[in-house]
């Protein structure tokens, strides 16, 4: 078993009275998840009054979405990372750079997803130097897929890869569990379940860049209002021929709906 996951026990002195009692407390380092991971709850041998984030190893939530338009892509994500009931990071940017014009959206185990993104970032840098030009989005997605597939038993992360290249324009690829599939748009994370109906109904072919941005913001806002594990602010990245533009939309600027 991985050494970092072995439970550590220590004795803690408690109380200010004359009789000092010692208490055995079992802790293990917390593992933070973005969404979608099925992890067994760690069973404590005795009751502990610690906060959840010290001992809980529970799945957390996310909503990520990517959509292509003629000339580029728009990616969006929420910003919540939670462990149990605690939100350990309310402003995390889950859209991470793989190359100048290729980004990926992270979901699942935070550690797994970030590591995959860093590895592919490195591999793409080397690859782009070797070929002497910007890499294709398909290459980035294939590199992510190779890692996801080879280590599919150990990893639990789902990355949506999206970007622009001069051969294929804007492209969105899903790499769930090691498959590779190009789609006009993709949603992922625990919050995505609540918006499948909405995206199916609202998506139209050949939307403009502004329509896509509005579509992404509406979808994120709906998912964040229904999914307890998604929330915070919305991050948007728009990638086209000229480059990538990052944007952050605060909670009070998000669109609201009939019951808000």
């Amino acid at each position, binding site marked *: 078993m991985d050494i970092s996951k072995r439970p550590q026990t220590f004795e803690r002195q408690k109380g200010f009275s004359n009789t000092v009692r010692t208490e055995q407390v079992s802790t293990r380092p917390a593992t933070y998840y973005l969404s979608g991971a099925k992890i067994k709850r760690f069973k404590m041998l005795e009751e502990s009054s610690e906060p959840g984030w010290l001992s809980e190893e529970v799945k957390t939530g996310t909503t990520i979405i990517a959509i292509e338009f003629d000339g580029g892509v728009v990616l969006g994500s929420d910003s919540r990372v939670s462990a149990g009931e605690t939100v350990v990071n309310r402003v995390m940017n889950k859209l991470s750079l793989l190359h100048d014009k290729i980004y990926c959206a992270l979901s699942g185990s935070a550690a797994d997803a970030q590591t995959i993104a860093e590895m592919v970032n490195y591999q793409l840098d080397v690859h782009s130097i070797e070929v002497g030009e910007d890499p294709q989005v398909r290459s980035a997605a294939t590199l992510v897929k190779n890692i996801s597939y080879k280590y599919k038993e150990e990893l639990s992360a789902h990355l949506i890869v999206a970007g622009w290249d001069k051969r294929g324009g804007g492209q969105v690829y899903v790499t769930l569990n090691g498959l590779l599939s190009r789609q*006009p748009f993709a949603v992922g994370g625990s919050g995505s*379940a*609540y*918006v*499948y*109906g*909405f*995206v*199916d*109904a*609202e*998506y*139209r*072919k050949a939307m403009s860049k502004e329509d896509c941005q509005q579509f992404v913001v*509406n*979808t994120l806002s*709906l*998912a964040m*209002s*229904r999914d307890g594990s998604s929330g915070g602010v919305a991050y948007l990245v728009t990638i086209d021929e000229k480059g990538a533009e990052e944007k952050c939309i605060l909670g009070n600027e998000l669109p609201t*709906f*009939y*019951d808000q």
Partner: protein
Amino acid sequence: MLTLYNPICSLYNPIYYTTIMAVEYDGGVVIGADSRTTTGAYIANRVTDKLTPIHDRIFCCRSGSAADTQAIADVVTYQLGFHSIELDEAPLVQTAANLFKASCYRYREELMAGIIVAGWDKRRGGQVYTVPVGGMLVRQPVSVGGSGSTYIYGYMDSNYKPNMTKDQCLRLVSGALSLAMERDGSSGGVVRLAAISETGVDRQVILGNQLPKWSTA
């Protein structure tokens, strides 16, 4: 929520993993449901009617265990019929909803039933009450239930507005149900709709090839 289907053994547990929805408008309610009953992976009934009349102007939409919800609906139909004779007038939708809640809450450990009660009465007009698993009771202007409901929360939030007309509600419900049936493997078949108002109940069936189509399909 496991169902075991053993083709040799006669014990099986038909379940309505379903999508049900109810919307109120000024003057009545519109309710809708899919039509699939499954026992494991086998579709036991592909044309189920999950919209059950409880009284002349009160219906319930059933999801969860088929046996449990049928039994509860029968009990409430009897209780409500008796109550309405004693009262000598049409019962209130709130009464029907509370009767459902009483049964669902008392036997919450044994039952698996998620019910939406909707109807029209002359005191408050069209009303929708939802009694999910566990026995809570809450009134909402629009409510979805069943396994397919998770996929249409976003669609419902963005497309429902207060004070819609009956036709807008019918379009909202049939659109939402067809989206859920598309994404949820446990919902499917035809869409059954009913519009309840002071003048009566107007039922319709939308067949698979007449459902609204979306560009991703």
